[in-house]
């Protein structure tokens, strides 16, 4: 049995709050995923798999 413990994901989210209180939500500005695939790739593959089943 393979045992693997480690950092699976790091996400950095940001929002800018202007002096007048306006909030600009920038979402994810930095990300690490423990895979060669991006989250968008994984979502696309999931969608494809759903289409095929």
């Amino acid at each position, binding site marked *: 049995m393979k045992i693997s413990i480690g950092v699976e994901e790091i996400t950095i989210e940001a929002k800018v709050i202007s002096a007048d209180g306006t909030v600009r939500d920038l979402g994810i500005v*930095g990300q*690490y995923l423990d895979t060669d695939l991006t989250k968008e790739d994984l979502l696309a593959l999931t969608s494809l798999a759903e289409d095929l089943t």
Partner: protein
Amino acid sequence: MAAATVLCNTGLSIITNRIKGSGTEPAYFAIGTGATGAARTAAVTDTTLSSQSGSRVAPGAGVTTAQATTDKTNDTYRVIGSVTAGSTLTYDEIGLFDASTSGNMFVSATITPISVIAGDTVQFTIKVKFAN
């Protein structure tokens, strides 16, 4: 510069130190503006930012940390930090450290550039999720 986010080699020491019950929490937050100019992409060998903007933000002075749950109970270390720009800037790098100066770098990131003007406050939420 490319966008990248990494757990630094020195971050591994922080983790094993903390498991052993020693070391300091990597709750000191730094932001910088020099990654693009230095053509630097975050790498596991990083120990500092290219050009840190201001001082690192310390726990209790603009940074809060917590254990959080993403998939399994307390599988995520979360840091929320805020900085207020004193002038027009473009932030492009972020780091987490275990000290207010020097110390060890836990996470290094070269990010999607964020342009701000004086008076803008940028709030960052950094989540490090562990899995087995």
